Structure formats: C-alpha cells, structure tokens
C-alpha cells in the first residue's frame, strides 16, 4: 500500500471520537447537576409494595395513593420497597428511581406547574403492576 494516503480515515476517526467524548462529558455533567439536592429540600419517604405507593412527609403525615406537594418547593424522595423491586416514576417531571427492598435510593425534584400528575410503577412487579398508580397533586402556595 505504498503511496496510500489515509488522512480521510483519521479525520473520520477524529470526528467520531470527538462526538463520543462530547456525549460522555455532557451526560456526566448533567447527571452531576441533577443529582445535587438543594439544602432546603423536604424529605418524603416513598415506599412501594404490591401494589400501592405510600408517602410519608417530614411532619409524619402519611398518604396512600396520593401525594400533595407545594409548587416551587424542592422535595427529596427517599425511595424503598417492602417486597419486590418497583420503580417510582413521575413521568411529567422526569423523576424515575428504583424502589429496592433494603435500600434507600434518593431522587429530588421541584415542581414548577400546579396540577395533577400520574405516578406509575415502571418495573414489572407482579399481577397488578399495571395498576400500581398514584396521583401527584401540585398545589399553589397557601392553597
């Protein structure tokens, strides 16, 4: 292969490697930003069990199948499970965290829009998995 020029191949490799580096760096950076919980976030304990969700606020208030939060406030969910693996998902707010027995996983969010939003289990957890739902109520301050 004497006299063969392979510079286009190096350009090709360079472009693809540069794009892949960008993908890794960008994903890592957003993950880092999204995982840092604000200092004043209120902790809500979330427990999954076949086939319902239980929520416990910092003041001890418990809710089953419903979660009431205030618009504009930060909330940190401590997610666990009593039986099998579930997955806690608020689709409209891009909240998704596995609920694993014996483990507490955390995820936080700050709801920006008032309204009702569905909460759904996203890990197949048995016969009634499809109906393991709850509702998130985001209320205006003082409502």
């Amino acid at each position, binding site marked *: 292969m004497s006299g063969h020029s392979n510079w286009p191949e190096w350009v090709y490799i360079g472009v*693809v490697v540069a*794009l892949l580096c*960008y*993908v890794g760096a*960008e*994903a890592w950076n957003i*993950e*880092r930003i999204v995982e840092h919980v604000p200092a004043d976030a209120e902790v809500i304990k979330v427990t999954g069990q076949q086939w319902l969700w239980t929520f416990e606020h910092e003041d001890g208030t418990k809710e089953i199948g419903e979660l009431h939060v205030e618009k504009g406030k930060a909330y940190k969910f401590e997610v666990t499970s009593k039986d099998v693996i579930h997955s806690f998902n608020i689709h409209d707010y891009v909240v998704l965290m596995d609920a694993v027995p014996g483990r507490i996983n955390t995820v936080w969010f700050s709801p920006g829009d008032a309204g009702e939003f569905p909460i759904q289990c996203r890990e197949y957890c048995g016969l009634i998995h499809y109906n393991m739902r709850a509702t998130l109520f985001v209320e205006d301050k003082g409502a």
Partner: protein
Amino acid sequence: MMIGLGIVLGLLVVLPSIQYVLAAGDEPGEYLDRRIEIWGLFYRLMIVAFTIGTIVSGTIVWLVLRFRESNPKAKPTEYEASGKW
C-alpha cells in the same frame, strides 16, 4: 502490553477517582427544572447520534457506489489486472 495496562488502570482507578472528587461533592445543589435539563440532554445527544449515523451510513453508501465494478471510474486492482493473487 504497557498501553493495555494503562487503559485498564485508567478505567479501574483514575476515572472513578476523578468522578469521586468532582461529582460526589456534598455541596448543596441549586433549584433547577429536571425536565429542561434531562430532555435538553436527550435532544442534544440525539443530534450527535444522528450525526454519527449520517457520517457512517453516508460513508458506506459512498464506498459501495464508488467502488462498485460498474462505476465508470473503476479500475481493476493490480491483482485483478494480472490475474495473480
């Protein structure tokens, strides 16, 4: 050998250390909208994915058309020309 060892050590030791130092900080985060951050990331990465897809598939299409036997610019390789392999 040494390059391979370096890559393995890099993956096992150096990268997790950087991750630990830079990402596992205890400083409190700022209020942000997850929807904007996460969907924004998704769309940016989709642009990258389609760009790579276009480059790779475009190169393959060009390669197949340019080096087909029926291309007017096609020349037999020296092996084909001499009939000896």
